[in-house]
């Protein structure tokens, strides 16, 4: 039982981590809590659905329920959602930033943007659940008593690869270093010749792309509906804050911890309380270690 719960927690944790990276970047670089981030997951999931509608999910490859077409759809969704995130910044957040808006104004604007984004999805696709593929999958027994779907393992691998790629980008490339510099001190970064607008643009594109992957992965296991992103929002914030704002390693560790906490909690409380777990974790972090596990800002 516990082993299965841990396996489930790791699998959802990877998806939460992908989404939390975007949240932590917006917190660290744009310095506001983007409550519309969950909708980027939803947008990503539905963008992939459009591609799948045209290209099909592909013939199942090996033990997986989908073929390469779905991977292509995920990549298209990542690119499109990255651009969408940037466009939303240009339409909403950048205008407010230029006017020197207070963080609270930004938060409310994000709520507004979230509602508009979610209802655009409902307008086009309606409330009913949709599926990328209706192929049935048989869970494989990894360890005695631990069963996972091949899709889930594949997703875990892809998610880890995306995080590793981002880590290499942030630590090895000059643009990545400039992003981390901007997250720590925008003024000093400007003095170094880093252009704020460029870093902001890149931050949105990366956040949106990773959110889209998280959305597609959530939709694969097993369905898509207009609230998939919104339902994850609290977990994303709990993970970002748990890890410490602005920290990639923090968001990843936070994501896995939140995923584990949620699935382990199911062993002792009824599933109805699952949604309360991120709240409880968040409260515990804020009381005990407000700067997060990896945070250095007091």
């Amino acid at each position: 039982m516990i082993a299965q719960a841990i396996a489930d927690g790791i699998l959802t944790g990877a998806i939460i981590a992908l989404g939390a990276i975007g949240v932590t970047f917006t917190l660290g670089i744009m310095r506001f809590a983007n409550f519309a981030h969950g909708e980027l997951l939803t947008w990503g999931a539905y963008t992939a659905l459009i591609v799948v509608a045209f290209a099909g999910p592909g013939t199942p490859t090996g033990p997986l329920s989908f073929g390469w077409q779905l991977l292509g759809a995920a990549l298209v969704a990542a690119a499109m959602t990255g651009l969408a995130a940037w466009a939303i910044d240009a339409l909403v957040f950048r205008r407010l930033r230029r006017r020197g808006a207070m963080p609270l104004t930004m938060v409310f604007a994000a709520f507004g943007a979230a509602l508009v984004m979610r209802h655009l999805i409902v307008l086009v696709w309606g409330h009913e659940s949709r599926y990328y593929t209706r192929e049935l999958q048989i869970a494989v027994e990894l360890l005695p008593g631990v069963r996972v779907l091949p899709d889930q393992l594949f997703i875990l691998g892809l998610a880890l690869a995306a995080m590793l790629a981002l880590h290499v980008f942030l630590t090895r490339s000059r643009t990545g270093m400039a992003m981390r510099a901007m997250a720590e001190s925008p003024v000093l970064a400007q003095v170094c010749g880093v252009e704020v607008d460029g870093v902001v643009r890149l931050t949105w594109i990366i956040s949106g792309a990773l959110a889209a992957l998280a959305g597609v992965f959530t939709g694969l296991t097993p369905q898509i509906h207009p609230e998939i992103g919104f339902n994850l929002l609290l977990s994303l914030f709990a993970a970002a804050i748990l890890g410490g704002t602005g920290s990639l390693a923090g968001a990843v560790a936070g994501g896995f911890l939140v995923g584990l906490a949620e699935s382990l909690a199911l062993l002792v409380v009824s599933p109805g309380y699952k949604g309360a777990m991120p709240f409880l974790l968040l409260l515990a972090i804020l009381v005990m270690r407000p700067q997060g596990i990896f945070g250095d800002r007091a």
Partner: protein
Amino acid sequence: MLHGVSVEVDRGEIVTLVGPNGAGKSTLLKAIAGLLACEGGQVRLDGRDVTGLPAHEAVASGIGFVPQIGNVFTSLTVHENLTVGAHIIRGSLNDRLERAYTVFPPLSSRRRLRARTLSGGERQMLAIARALMTAPGLLMLDEPTAGLAPLVVEEVFRRLRALAQEGIAVLMVEQNAKAALRVSDRGYVLAEGRNRFAGSARALIDDPGVAEAFLGGRPLSARPPA
């Protein structure tokens, strides 16, 4: 707020701005660096008008700035700090990095360490080395010796002197006015956002009015021998 302040720095000289808190010294540096908008006035560098350039373009035009607080990225390594310092430079940074490590040897052995682990003096060296990565014609420093131990203060001033000798124009703001003026060629005294005195560093140290009002005491030369 500044009113009709005029400051000039030639290549190869150190110029220090002194004056009480709130005199507008830091404001002046930030305005030149492009961090604050100017309502009027002009910034000229080697005859080019660089007024009102945003900070990232001011760097490209040859202005290096070391702010007073938060002048290194503590979460980045020494090496990454220097790399970000050269953000506007395209192509390989190897030569510039090697040069920085040659000029500031203590940084070389710490290149893989995060800047938060450095001592105060090492941080200041890193901050200066970072600003020098773009080979600026004008280097501006806001309180470069604030909070440093006396021996380190001397070390920082000695390095600034050496930089000036290489032909860089150095403009600094210092609370530690007397010590700063001793290594400077010229100085300006700012008060309430205006130029109050200007002259050679020696003359400012010796001026009874300046000494009384801004340097905390009687002029050095008027002191009876001990």
